[in-house]
């Protein structure tokens, strides 16, 4: 399975008379995009705002973030299961608008509580927060959705996801006939020498229910057992995020540009033999299910012939137990493992950084302390709303002016945990 990924670099984005891409500039027909994103049954209004790297701009209430991608040939579509049948993707030619993200920003119409709620995670387009959030380095087309009166959270959330995907496809269509991409990459497994170690990527994603869920080929994965994916499937949008624990989520944009899959591909056929992905969920309801999941992960990896595994987790708390069960099962199956994690050791780094561990997990890569606090400056412009509620602003759901200077941690940043890992943050014993 070979995927050719052709990148068209977006250097600027602007509103214009028609939606088109030329010379690195993406022009957007505002009314066309509003129409495409809308759904009269559940969505009252869609506004569109643009934000670019380096601006003193803060984006709030962001749900998912996507990147425009489109399949050039074959029967499959990008974002399968949503924009077309759930046919296997990851082969053929895909075109993308590189350096561009389409963001959904919305407030849910119905009250929420417990786990099933939105957690604010902001995007700062410049300043010290920019390194700790996703989509601070992309030109962003932000779709601002307002729910129609009477729409339920489920109706509204589902409608805006589909609306955003339609916009994403429309923007990608602008490069269907464009000449000469800025970059062409080929991704394929195989071709590695027999002496190179066989390595899998174990991707434990978050799924706890509505508003904290992940989609595989258009379907939620509540009852998923560990399954094998080709890494190229991620690049065509087989995995879509519906997880609004914003700080810990892995946005679809990040899965399309997956930092761990890309790291493994960079060394493939040179230093290792990348043989595939074991895709699984965490947050199983009890210990027996967590253990079962771990054994099934190990079994899938073993049957692929893996000798080593790089593991990541999305989420925190409870799901560490699932993660450590998988690490233990893999190691006991003779598969050597490395885990990539965040730390929750308190603002000063003096507390225990993890809630569960297995002694077998003796090679951990740390993205650093997510509880460390830092200052965000006041900003000139806020996109998405005037106020934010942090689940813990010095303790308890506090409504603050979104444009103000704020003292935050990765808990208040969009995809903060994963972006700290991706951007080289770590921690050491001192």
């Amino acid at each position: 399975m070979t995927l050719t990924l052709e990148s068209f670099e977006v250097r600027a984005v602007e509103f214009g008379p028609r939606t088109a891409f030329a010379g690195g500039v993406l022009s957007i027909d505002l009314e066309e995009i509003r129409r495409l994103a809308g759904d009269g049954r559940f969505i009252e209004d869609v506004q569109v705002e643009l934000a670019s790297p380096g601006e003193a701009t803060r984006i709030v209430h962001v749900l998912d973030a996507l990147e425009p991608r489109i399949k050039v040939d074959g029967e499959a579509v990008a974002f399968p299961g949503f924009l077309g049948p759930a046919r296997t993707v990851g082969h053929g030619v895909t075109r993308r608008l590189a350096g561009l993200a389409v963001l959904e920003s919305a407030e849910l119409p119905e009250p929420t509580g417990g786990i099933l709620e939105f957690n604010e995670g902001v995007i700062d387009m410049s300043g010290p927060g920019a390194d700790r959030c996703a989509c601070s380095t992309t030109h962003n087309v932000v779709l601002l959705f307002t729910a129609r009166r009477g729409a339920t959270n489920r109706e509204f959330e589902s409608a805006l996801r589909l609306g955003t995907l339609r916009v994403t496809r429309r923007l990608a269509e602008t490069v269907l006939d464009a000449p000469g991409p800025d970059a062409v990459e080929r991704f394929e497994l195989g071709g590695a020498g027999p002496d190179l170690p066989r390595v899998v990527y174990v991707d434990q994603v978050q799924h706890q229910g509505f508003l904290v869920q992940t989609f595989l080929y258009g379907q939620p994965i509540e009852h998923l057992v560990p399954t094998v994916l080709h890494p190229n499937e991620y690049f065509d949008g087989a995995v879509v995020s519906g997880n609004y624990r914003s700080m810990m989520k892995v946005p679809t944009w990040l899965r399309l540009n997956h930092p761990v899959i890309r790291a493994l591909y960079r060394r493939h056929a040179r230093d290792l033999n990348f043989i595939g992905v074991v895709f699984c969920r965490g947050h199983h309801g009890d210990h027996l299910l967590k253990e079962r999941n771990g054994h099934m992960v190990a079994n899938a990896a073993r049957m692929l012939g893996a000798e080593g595994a790089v593991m990541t987790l999305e989420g925190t708390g409870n799901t560490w137990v699932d993660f450590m069960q998988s690490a233990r099962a893999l190691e006991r199956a003779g598969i050597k493992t490395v885990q990539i994690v965040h730390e929750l050791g308190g603002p000063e780094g003096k507390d225990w950084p993890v809630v569960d561990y297995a002694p077998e997990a003796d090679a951990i890569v740390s993205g650093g302390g997510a509880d460390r606090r830092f200052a965000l400056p006041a900003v000139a412009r806020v996109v998405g709303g005037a106020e934010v509620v942090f689940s813990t602003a010095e303790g308890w759901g506090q409504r603050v002016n979104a444009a103000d200077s704020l003292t935050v941690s990765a808990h208040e940043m969009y995809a903060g945990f994963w972006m700290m890992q991706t951007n080289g943050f770590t921690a050491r014993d001192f």
Partner: protein
Amino acid sequence: MTPLKVVHYINQFFGGIGGEDKADASPTYRSGPVGPGTALARHLGAGATVVGTLICGDNYFVEHTDEAVTELLQLAKTYDADVLVAGPAFSSGRYGTACGTLARAWQAETGKPAVTAMNENNPGVELFRSEIHVVRSGPTAASMSEALPRLAALALKLGRGVEVGPADAEGYFPRGVRQPLRLEQGAGERAVELLLAKLAGRPYRTELPIEDFGAVPPAPPVPELGRAVVALVTESGLVPHGNPDRLETWNASRWFKYPIAGLDDLEPGRYQAWHGGCDTTWTNEDPDRAVPLDAARLLEKAGVIGRLYDHYYVTTGNMANIKTMARIGAEIAQDLRANGIQAVVLTAT
């Protein structure tokens, strides 16, 4: 730059006074370096001078700790030093205790830094490493030549107020603090490097060494449950509606107790699960699912338990800090004991 002034503490043996038979020697001092201090001075180089050496017998120190510390600090004043170096104490327990105790007192008294060196088997490591930089050394004086350069390097940094690097890079025992760093490579690249090393059997080092949490042994059975006072304790975050005391939904730092005297059932709408880590729909629908008051009253009426305590205890167990939860557990346990409770039903989410 004027050279730093270093004062060096050693025991009677390294001070040339004598062996175990002289361990009762009381504090004394010499100008300039003595014994291992000579090599220490060489490693310190031109940047620092060993201005004096404090010496005390190991037995004297541990048997007359307060006097020893007072006398040694008094002697140290003569030198007006910038930094105290103590040891290395290797695996000698009394010597390690002396080095750590004096170093801690020096830091507290003068506000200036101290550094010592010990072997991992020295009990002084656990006693002092959170407060003093303790350089790793081998078990015996045979490892002197490895310990002194690191000791000297750290003394220079601490004395000059230069930022000290991570424990593994500088060679000291972790002080129980995780500090942030930023690296060139992202986690994915580093994970691949680490895995390749592990697969090839090359040495590798985790970025997050994890200590054992320890195990909680199950309590013995309650001898006479029919006469016992039983309490309901929960981490489900169930609080009176509106969360009057502002219990946190995650990373809780507090616990509360709420009255249940005279109640046979927790009515929906009057209580609310304040927990950000699980679906609270079912608890809110029937709060007894989190705090089983209705069932406990039946057991009380049937005489299975002696009496139900007239409050329930609650905190939130979500993304919680383990040390904080251990503290909360201990506080609740203390309150339970103070109220004569013999058994607890602990409900989790």
